[in-house]
């Protein structure tokens, strides 16, 4: 497997996905023991560049890097050089000149991480670009599903809520499709992207209908900060029609699990009791798997990079 960057799920094949998940599985088990630190990334410099607010994802990447022995640096980009008028490419070139091994990037615009990756020679990990992709989230969701359900194929999975403005939904539906699952999208028509049915998913506007017999219920955050205004009439109407409560969940299979990428709006998209019901909700496990998946992804990228460097060294020079 020769991945240089992890920019999205789209470029991955099922075998690569499985390899990442297998390694992450190993890290997940290790993380539960007291010997969870290693030196796989010793001597590596990891820069976390977040152009958009994030607490949990950034913390997860930081912990993952530190557990593997990398030197981790966090850069909050909202306030810095961008305000001084520096372009994304110049920022990338500046950082590149400091020779990091890994850059983890979150950016509010779709495609921005791809653009940045073209300009640097270290590995780039996409931690979310606009509404486009959030690959580590999809991988951690996949690992959580695989550990709970024992497999990652032939499952009925409903992704519910604000699909249109969600990179989590996009990465997940691509990944789950590649692994041969049946994906349903549930939400109001105003929050569905145009032409989405062409991607081989089923679209439901009635949540009870959409949850019938599913193995996994994946809730999305109603991203109020992304709304230009007027996608839904009100929060309470949304909760009534699309909030996950016991009545709606009863339509799913009795052993269906409930997922949420967080942070949750209790009482908007999910009932607090369900979120806290440990027999159904795997929300805490998702966070746990997040660290493991990020460790695995960074491990693989750095290993590939070192191998590339070794190979180029052996090339005869003119």
């Amino acid at each position, binding site marked *: 497997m020769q991945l240089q960057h992890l920019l999205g799920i789209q470029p991955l094949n099922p075998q690569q996905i499985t390899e990442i998940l297998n390694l992450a599985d190993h890290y997940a088990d290790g993380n539960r023991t007291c010997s969870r630190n290693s030196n796989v990334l010793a001597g590596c410099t990891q820069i976390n560049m977040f152009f958009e607010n994030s607490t949990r994802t950034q913390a997860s990447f930081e912990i993952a890097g530190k557990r593997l022995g990398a030197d981790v640096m966090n850069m909050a980009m909202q306030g810095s050089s961008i305000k001084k008028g520096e372009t994304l490419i110049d920022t990338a070139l500046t950082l590149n000149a400091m020779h990091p091994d890994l850059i983890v990037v979150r950016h509010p615009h*779709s*495609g921005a991480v791809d*653009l940045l990756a073209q300009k640097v020679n270290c590995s780039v990990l996409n931690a979310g670009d606009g509404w*486009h992709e959030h690959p580590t989230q999809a991988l951690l969701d996949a690992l959580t599903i695989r550990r709970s359900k024992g497999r990652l194929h032939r499952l009925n999975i409903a992704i519910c809520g604000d699909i249109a403005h969600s990179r989590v939904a996009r990465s997940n539906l691509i990944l789950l499709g590649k692994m041969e699952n049946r994906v349903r999208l549930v939400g109001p028509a105003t929050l569905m992207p145009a*032409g989405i049915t062409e991607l081989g998913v089923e679209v439901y506007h009635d949540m009870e209908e959409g949850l019938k017999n599913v193995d996994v219920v994946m809730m999305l955050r109603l991203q109020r900060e992304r709304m230009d205004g007027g996608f839904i009439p009100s929060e309470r109407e949304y909760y009534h029609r699309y909030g996950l409560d016991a009545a709606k969940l009863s339509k799913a299979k009795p052993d269906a699990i409930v997922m949420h990428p967080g942070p949750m709006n209790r009482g908007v998209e999910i009932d607090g009791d369900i979120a806290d019901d440990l027999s159904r909700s795997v929300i805490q496990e998702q966070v746990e798997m997040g660290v493991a998946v990020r460790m695995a992804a960074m491990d693989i990228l750095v290993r590939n990079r070192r191998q590339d460097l070794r190979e180029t060294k052996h090339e005869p020079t003119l």
Partner: protein
Amino acid sequence: MKSLRITNVHIIDPERQTVELGSLTIKHGLISAEDTTVLTYDGQGKYLAPGIVDIGTKVCEPGERHKESFRSAGLAAAAGGVTTLITRPDTDPAIDSPETLEFAGRRAQAACAVHTYQMAALTKGRLGREMTEIGFLQDAGAIAFTDCDAVVTDTKVLSRALTYARQLGALVIGHPQDPGLSKGAAATSGKFASLQAIPAVSPMAERLGLERDLALVEMTGAKYHADQISTALALPALERAKQQGLDVTAGVSIHHLTLNEFDVADYRSFFKVKPPLRSEEDRQAVVSALASGLLDIISSMHTPQNEESKRLPYEQAASGAVALETLLPAALRLYHSDHLSLPQLFRALSLNPANRLGLPCGRLSEGAPADLILFDPNSPFLLDRFQLNSKSKNTPFDGQRMQGRVLATFVDGQKVYQR
């Protein structure tokens, strides 16, 4: 002045819709029927056509001469076979007063190798609030009035401007796009935009904008041209208006005729144009509409942007592409794919725009100005954007195989370009 006879050429006549091997005489800068030849020029069996009249070229003077000047635009036009530039007023500041119009005219006179005519803004500052001095601007030489891609949202303002323009016989050019639906959009809604997660606009926004403008044209009786029709949905509305006898014409940009939304691929911002590239079905529909004559004019929509404004995340990148030098080879793709004949192509590139603006060029009849291009429609080449004459190099055709090159360009009988 000596007369010049171009011999041994296939003459493309868009008026008679013919291609015939023959010769053509130029005398005193005009096409002549006489045969008192002194000089001859062997066309070597290549093709001769009236020079292209390009409605909607952006030359970035005043304001952004680093992106394109009248000099560089003139060189690019001559090399691309464009003999008449109809420039846009969306400069900085906008060309909305006789003074700015005269400035642009003077600069064009001094530096531009081909004919230029300036369009002026329809409303002051292109803000859609008050109409410009349409009468004064017309006296100063404004050939048409347009706010370019800034849609006049207030229908009262637009209806008054149209009424006032009608009384002066002035042509108004609209950008059919519903401003509400298209706000913030950088792609056409559909599978591609949804996957790439680019904010998108429904193609219906174009029909909405066109229907509104046509209703106001019907109400006011103004002379109207829609700058770019790029979707199948808008075509029936246009057809109805023409059948109704409204004084309406419509254009399409070369990019919407030859590219589709999938060309954007991994956020390639050189493919970001306004309106955004459409689906393949839409592209085919506008090609057919051009062949049938429902769409009248092909424009380059030449919009120079420097590297800095393009090398940004797709949503933030500037819109527009340079096209003066790629207009003909790209248009010839439609000829090579058997969608349009050469006379049909030059009807849309030269004759129709000249007719719409009341210009004597764009044809090969006796007494017309000798604005001519000699070209080889089959000559293949690989486009290298750094070889373009434009100051800005933002072409979506970079690195692509193209077919068809201009060999010589004549303006008023004078050779302004030779390959």
